[in-house]
């Protein structure tokens, strides 16, 4: 975060003195992080079919997005017509879903995505108080998938009584994401603005690694989380990485909106 702040300040200070205004702002808001809903729906569909006799209806344990709050800091310079900004954003989104069986037993699946991002955006004024333009972003994404069984007495377990239970993470804990998209910024006052951004996940240089989310805290159990539950249930030892949830499945379009408050003008 310190490095991002210094970068943002350096960018701002590097602008010639003729630039009319600039400032350092705090931001906070709402973030919607997209997942690969089509791929993840495979798990929901196969799980629902496998337990069709015990479930009331189809389940949605792995959603197509998560949402949560975000916060950060932005350095911005503007000459009235053009605007340039660099910043740091911390965002967290989480999902929590449960499949309930007829005897109050259940299967609970939660996902969590935590991003630490730096972004650059170049905006141009199109209307009074409104600027729009492209934005690029690099993020360090930490993805976690937690699967727990709920027993009839209500107790919840991530233990080894069911092999699918566990806490699954990306290899190395975090992955780099590169995104590009557009930003719109609406000035409410000279210090308070509302930024809205839509970003799309770019393909990774060299292609995806293909390493699935893995339960690294155990060494011979609960290795990966299945994408096709029926195929996994037929032979749990035969699951290959292509049939498992990969970090790429927990990445997609990002939408964020919030409020930006200038705390330091220069």
């Amino acid at each position, binding site marked *: 975060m310190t490095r991002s702040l210094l970068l943002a300040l350096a960018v701002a200070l590097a602008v010639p003195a003729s630039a009319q205004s600039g400032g350092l702002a*705090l*931001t906070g808001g709402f973030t919607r992080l997209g997942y690969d809903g089509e791929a993840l729906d495979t798990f929901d569909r196969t799980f629902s079919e496998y337990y069709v006799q015990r479930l009331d209806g189809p389940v949605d344990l792995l959603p197509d997005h998560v949402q949560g709050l975000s916060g950060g800091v932005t350095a911005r310079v503007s000459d009235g017509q053009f605007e340039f900004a660099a910043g740091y954003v911390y965002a967290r989104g989480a999902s929590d879903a449960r499949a309930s069986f007829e005897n109050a037993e259940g299967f609970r699946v939660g996902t969590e995505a935590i991003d630490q991002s730096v972004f650059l955006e170049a905006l141009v004024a199109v209307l009074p108080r409104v600027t729009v333009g492209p934005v690029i972003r690099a993020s360090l994404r930490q993805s976690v998938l937690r699967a727990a069984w709920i027993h*009839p*007495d209500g107790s919840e*377990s991530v233990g*080894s*009584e069911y092999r699918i239970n566990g*806490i699954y993470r990306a290899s190395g804990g975090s992955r780099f994401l590169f995104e590009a998209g557009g930003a719109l910024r609406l000035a409410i006052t000279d*210090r308070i603005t509302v930024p809205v951004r839509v970003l799309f996940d770019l393909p990774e240089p060299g292609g995806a690694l293909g390493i699935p989310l893995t339960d690294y805290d155990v060494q*011979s159990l609960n290795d990966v989380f299945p994408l096709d539950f029926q195929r996994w249930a037929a032979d749990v030892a035969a699951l290959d990485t292509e049939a498992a949830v990969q970090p790429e499945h927990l990445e997609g379009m990002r939408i964020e909106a919030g409020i930006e408050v200038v705390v330091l003008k220069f």
Partner: protein
Amino acid sequence: MRLSLLIAVLLLAGCDAFFDPEGSNDRQASVERLEGTWTLTTRSERIAYDGTITPAGGTETRALEVAQEVTCNRDQRLRAEGEETRAYVVSDPAAPSALRTCGLLTVDQDGKRIVFLGLNEDAAGNIVDDGGDRQEWHFYTVLTDGTTDRTIWTLTR
């Protein structure tokens, strides 16, 4: 100006709440907290299909030792080198060192599970109490008739 300051303070307070207080050293600290000799009490409960809980079997008490370095298995000195998040568990510390039964355990990075690492299969339980003087671990076994056995390990010292 006052409105800006108020919103800025709220944003700063919000940012602080976003960060996960768990650090990377927490897992190592959890394992270190387990080191030493404990009095282990085990008991079991049976959870029926409708959620009814009944005691199953009696209560057993014995000693248990957890250490980064132990002697067991033909006087072989074992040390979890470079594995600060793992420790040896000696299930019969009173036995002669060459005859002790030793295994490896770890605490997951969320501090939610105790994991006994096995050659072919791990046994993972839920950490219910994670104190320095008292620990409680719950291990579940699902039976073919739909009932569930919960084995409760209570460690005190």
